[in-house]
């Protein structure tokens, strides 16, 4: 009664007035197609041998979250600062942005985030498992061995690394010239692996006996000692005094020796070692000439390295094969045979000699760099063994009388590259962890469940059950990107020393970029298949059926009201959604 007396007198409206909302109409019942968030795989990440989550890394860089970007790389690769310098970046070759204007400078951005972390001495926050029982020995402290130790340590295993030389790093320390990889960068990366508790025992050469006796202390041995034995040319005079092998030459230079070279120096071979040797020789005063039996496009060396070598003044003689090296008053007389292309099968052309066409050249020095092999037979994975399990970049052998052996790095990888070595170390860690936890027979299926896209790249984040497991393995194609949301913008040009400055010494050629340039470059990224929280789905929904939410996605679709029009899916610039039958 009191209430009635207090309520104000409301005049009857002259026209009918609405007093409730439309929210009681559950328009979701109209729907026959259903949108949902469906993150997919970016082509770059599937092409990265180390399976780095590149689309996400670039998204984090564009948001200014440099530490998180660095940690995202460290999930999959212990060497961002190294790979940001020396990787052959197959990621950029498949970048969807290439179809629009130009690929993202992924390589440069990887180095940028790592250098930023190094400059500020940042420690990564990456989850580690508690210590497990089994111990693993790692033979060789090159990129594959260190990567294996890094991933095994994160999985909780105690690792001892044995290195024959005085310092760790393998090819990274002794084979890659300083102008591509400064030593402080390598030291910093290795320091972080050591801080995980990995013991690196230098000056500790391991023999085949070690494998026999290792069972007392180790449940597994990772063999990643690389290819260090030189391959013979098989021609007269190749063992003459002063005819030198490429890798030991690079090692001498890297150790600080500066042999005095002058005049024409012949480098025989077409791989990365040959190119690095020629560029070092140039810096030491020589006029280097690379003698290669095939053509430039057949050279196994990375194209951009060949290009820089030629730019600096290295000469390339294509389709000439050495026949003989003989002493000469001014050094050596090199007899060369003209070759011609016989067939274009496979990745490299088949060549044959052109009868009767030879030439001679006089050079002050000959350096051989035609490839390398394992130093000793026990370092190679055994053939045809019933207990041999071959994965993409490793080979595992189970023995009745000793620890499991894993052959990795150059000994078993698909290609000889630092990124493949990292992939090999990661694959080994996953395989051994699966073996220790679930047994030998589980290895293949568990490792293949961590494939990025169609593989063979693997993701440690997926192995550990992280967010990335929810990604659809479908690799996003250019046609699936809504390019209306992107404007043409030029690709970042990697700043470099001028060629005149480069050849003065061994200073690093690639220069730093500013944060402003890194942000601009990262913003060019389509972030193929992953949500970067652009919010278009929420903005354009005619039914206000996309709501903010505190789940990891940041938003959810309210199916009470979603009519299934699909506007959100089409307006998603990066194909991170799907529309399917309800």
């Amino acid at each position, binding site marked *: 009664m009191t209430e009635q007396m207090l309520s104000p007198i409301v005049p009857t409206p002259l026209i009918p007035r*609405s007093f409730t*909302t439309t*929210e009681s109409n559950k328009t979701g019942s109209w729907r026959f197609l259903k949108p949902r968030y469906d993150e997919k795989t970016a082509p770059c990440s599937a092409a990265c041998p180390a399976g780095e989550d590149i689309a996400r890394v670039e998204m984090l860089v564009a948001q200014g979250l440099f530490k998180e970007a660095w940690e995202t790389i460290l999930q999959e690769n212990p060497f961002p600062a190294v790979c940001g310098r020396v990787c052959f970046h197959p990621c950029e070759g498949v970048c969807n942005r290439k179809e629009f204007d130009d690929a993202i400078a992924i390589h440069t951005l990887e180095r940028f985030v790592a250098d930023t972390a190094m400059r500020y001495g940042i420690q990564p926050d990456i989850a580690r498992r508690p210590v497990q029982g089994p111990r693993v020995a790692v033979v060789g402290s090159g990129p594959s061995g260190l990567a294996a130790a890094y991933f095994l340590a994160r999985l909780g295993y105690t690792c001892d690394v044995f290195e024959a030389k005085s310092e760790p790093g393998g090819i990274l320390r002794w084979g890659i010239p300083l102008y591509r990889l400064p030593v402080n960068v390598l030291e910093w990366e290795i320091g972080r692996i050591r801080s995980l508790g990995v013991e690196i025992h230098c000056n500790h050469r391991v023999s085949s006996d070690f494998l026999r006796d290792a069972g007392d202390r180790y449940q597994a041995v990772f063999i990643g000692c690389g290819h260090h034995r030189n391959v013979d040319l098989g021609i007269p005079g190749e063992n003459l005094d002063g005819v030198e092998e490429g890798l030991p030459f690079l090692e001498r230079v890297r150790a600080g020796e500066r042999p005095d070279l002058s005049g024409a120096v012949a480098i025989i071979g077409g791989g990365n070692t040959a190119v690095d040797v020629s560029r070092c020789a140039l810096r030491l005063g020589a006029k280097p000439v690379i003698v290669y039996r095939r053509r430039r496009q057949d050279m196994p060396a990375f194209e951009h390295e060949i290009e820089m070598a030629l730019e600096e003044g290295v000469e390339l003689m294509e389709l000439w094969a050495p026949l003989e090296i003989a002493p000469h008053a001014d050094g050596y007389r090199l007899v060369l045979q003209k070759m011609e292309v016989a067939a274009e099968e496979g990745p490299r052309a088949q060549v044959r000699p052109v009868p009767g066409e030879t030439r001679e050249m006089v050079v002050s020095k000959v350096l051989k760099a035609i490839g390398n092999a394992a130093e000793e037979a026990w370092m190679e994975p055994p053939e045809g063994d019933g207990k041999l399990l071959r994965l993409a970049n490793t080979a595992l052998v189970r023995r009745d009388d000793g620890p499991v052996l894993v052959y990795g790095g150059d000994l078993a990888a698909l290609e000889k590259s630092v990124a493949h070595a990292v992939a090999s170390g990661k694959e080994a860690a996953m395989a051994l962890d699966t073996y220790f936890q679930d047994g030998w027979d589980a290895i293949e299926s568990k490792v293949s469940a961590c494939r990025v896209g169609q593989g063979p790249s693997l993701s440690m984040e997926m192995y550990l059950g992280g967010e990335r497991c929810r990604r659809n393995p479908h690799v996003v194609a250019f046609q699936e990107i809504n390019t*209306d949301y992107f404007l043409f913008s030029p690709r970042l040009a990697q700043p470099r020393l001028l060629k005149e400055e480069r050849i003065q010494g061994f200073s690093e050629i690639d220069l730093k970029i500013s944060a402003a340039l890194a942000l601009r470059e990262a913003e060019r990224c389509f972030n193929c298949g992953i949500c970067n929280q*652009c919010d278009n789905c929420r903005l354009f929904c*005619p039914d*206000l059926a996309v709501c903010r939410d505190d789940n990891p996605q940041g938003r959810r679709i309210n199916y009470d009201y979603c009519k299934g029009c699909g*506007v959100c899916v089409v307006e998603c610039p990066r194909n991170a959604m799907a529309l399917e039958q309800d």
Partner: protein
Amino acid sequence: MELDVLDRDYMCSGHVGCPGCGAAIAMRFLLKALGEKTMMVIPACCWSIIAGPHPQSTLKVPVLHTAFETGGAVASGIRAALDAKGDTETTVVTWAGDGGTFDIGFQALSGAVERNEDFIYVCYDNEAYMNTGVQRSSSTPYGAWTTTTPGQEWKRLRKKNIVEALVAHRIPYAATASIAFPEDLVRKVKKAKGIKGSRFLHIYASCPTGWRIPSEMAIKIARMAVQTNIFPLYEVENGVRYTINYMPKGYLVREYFKLQGRFKHLTDNDLEQIQEMVNEDWELLLRKAGVSMSAAGTVA
């Protein structure tokens, strides 16, 4: 590239617009920019239905539903009533479809803006009488099928240029906007809100049902209308100062036409003819804006 658009909505779920309704998206953006101090007049149009049956309303601002031809007059009256109450804060907006603007409501609109009444008139244009079953209006474009221009009797008359008709009244502000360009749309609504006198906004709002397009293409097609110069984004101040807001990238009109069922009967010849008409309109607009053709990168 994140779009920078205000977060708060003044509209609810559960409205009865068709899936992918461009007019619903247009209303969302309009109210984001205007805020709650808004009174809205809706003459007969799709939105008379979308807003919900009595006693429901999907909008969080007051709405007066009114007769088809009265959009301009009713808004003038509400403005006068608010002025009499001393309320200068509330913005009065008429929200009408193309039928209520181009055809049936044109007299009241022309009268109101000639008197320079202080309100914003927004026409959300879906290019036919969609609510009553897709009958042609004077906004229906050349070449379109409707239920009153069926089969080979498709509309062979040009769309009325409503913005130029309003510009001829020398009103303080007239502009076009599109649901595919929310930042531009919101900016124009805010700009209009800050101006006194009659303001006119022509918002392109795709209609999946009437245009015979898949609902998920609603925004894409609205964007293409702008990219092809079929619906240029521009604004005119005081009837003379033209500013073009979007310069085209050279898309051809056929790209826009071939995606829509309402144009599927058109031959290559028809499309060429339409391309010429669009080029002509665009060149005329460039001349008014004082932009040289080469600077605008016009499609040859």
